[in-house]
Each structure stands twice: as structure tokens, then as C-alpha cells.
């Protein structure tokens, strides 16, 4: 099993189109799920999944099939693609689509709170925002967050704490106790 996996990776690194297709079909779902956690938009995540595999395809000759961890490498590229997207798009405050038909005072209050949280998140840099979303919302271990962002576990923790500090400051500025 392991031998077959390495063989596919070796063929992929050598430029075999079938091996690439095999890897694409095997991992497209995982890449999509990872990206959607960062960009929070399924349509955009689909586009970015294709972009991720495009970059993987271009960088195939640099991948060492015997020593390299394909999933880790792929996740790192997917994270970079998602971060590039976050850098490109202007921060904006969007309300979720599933707003209740009849707005009760409680629902209105919740929507206002969400809006304030989104606005506070817009104060974070894409790297810090991704770290916060992955660690605190996606509950990914700091080690995984660090690997995906290409930094150490300690640096990932620091990035999340820095993000939390900014969020607390921004939220308390607008009167939300956090």
C-alpha cells in the first residue's frame, strides 16, 4: 500500500498526468474543506481548490516523493492560496444569508453582534485571521495551524493570542464584553 502510494507520488513528481489526476481526485475534497474554513465561502473555495492544484502541478518537480509529506505540502500550498485570496479581497462586513424572516429583537441583537465581530476580524491581517479561524473556530491543533502557515507551533500560538488581543480591544471599543 505504502509502496503504491510512493509510486504514484514519484510518477506525479516526474510529470505523469495520470498520477496527478489520481492525486487530484483523492485530495480535492480535503483541500476544499481546508480552504473553506479560511475563506468561509464554498464557491470561492472551489476556485481556490483548482488554483491550489495548479500550483501543486507547477511545483511538482520540487516535491521529493520519498521524503516529502504530500498532505502537509498540499495543505501549506492551499493555505497560501487562501491567504493570497484574503489579501486580494477588501475586508467587508457581511451578514450571513440565513437571517430569520421575521426579525425579533433577540435576532436583531445577534445579527448586530455578528456584524461587530466581523468588523473586528477585519482588523486582523490575513495570516492572523487564518490562524484565529483555524485554531479557535475550526479547533485545529496549534501544531497543524503552524505547519499550514509555515511557522512553528509556538509562533502559531503567539499569532492566535495576538489576534485574540486585537479582537478583545476592538470589541470592547464598541461596547462588547469579550
Amino acid at each position, binding site marked *: 500500500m505504502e509502496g503504491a502510494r510512493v509510486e504514484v507520488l514519484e510518477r506525479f513528481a516526474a510529470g505523469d498526468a495520470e498520477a496527478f489526476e489520481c492525486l487530484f481526485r483523492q485530495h480535492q475534497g480535503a483541500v476544499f474543506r481546508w480552504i473553506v474554513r479560511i475563506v468561509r465561502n464554498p464557491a470561492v473555495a472551489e476556485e481556490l*481548490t483548482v488554483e491550489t492544484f*495548479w500550483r501543486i502541478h507547477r511545483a511538482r518537480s520540487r516535491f521529493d516523493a520519498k521524503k516529502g509529506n504530500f498532505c502537509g505540502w498540499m495543505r501549506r500550498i492551499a493555505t497560501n492560496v487562501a491567504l493570497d485570496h484574503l489579501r486580494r479581497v477588501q475586508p467587508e462586513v457581511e451578514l*450571513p444569508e440565513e437571517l430569520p424572516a421575521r426579525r425579533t429583537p433577540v435576532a436583531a441583537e445577534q445579527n448586530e453582534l455578528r456584524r461587530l465581530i466581523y468588523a473586528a476580524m477585519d482588523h486582523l491581517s490575513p495570516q492572523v485571521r487564518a490562524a484565529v479561524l483555524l485554531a479557535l473556530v475550526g479547533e485545529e491543533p496549534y501544531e497543524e495551524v503552524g505547519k499550514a502557515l509555515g511557522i512553528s507551533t509556538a509562533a502559531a500560538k503567539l499569532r492566535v493570542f495576538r489576534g485574540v488581543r486585537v479582537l478583545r480591544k476592538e470589541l470592547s471599543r464598541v461596547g462588547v464584553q469579550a
Partner: protein
Amino acid sequence: MSDPELEKIKSLLREAYPPQNEELRRDLWAEMQERLSQRVIRVPWWDWALLAAASAMTLLFPGVIPALLYHL
């Protein structure tokens, strides 16, 4: 930062960002193939530099045009 403070922020964030358990609903291979078929023609920077140098030469010294044509 104490744990209760972190937990408070976590719960606020989770309320604002509901879990994204979104699954990929379709196969993206067709899009991937389309992307792969778009051949990107890249001209290396030194080719552009050479072109710029040749253009500058012909403008400054029109006498070199026959020599350049000879070498083409």
C-alpha cells in the same frame, strides 16, 4: 490571557462563524483540465532586455540595422 477570556472569545467567534462542514459537491477535475490546458507563454526577462537593447541601438545608431539583419 486567562482561559475564561479565551473561552469567551472562542464562543463569540463560533457564534459568528458557524461550523463550515461544507463538503465538495462536485468533481472539479473538468475545471482543473481546463486550467492545465491554458498554456502560459512566458518570455524570460533577459529576452525583453535584449529586445530593449536592440531597439535602443537601432534608434541611436541606425547604421547598425544592416548588421543586426545580417545576424538574424
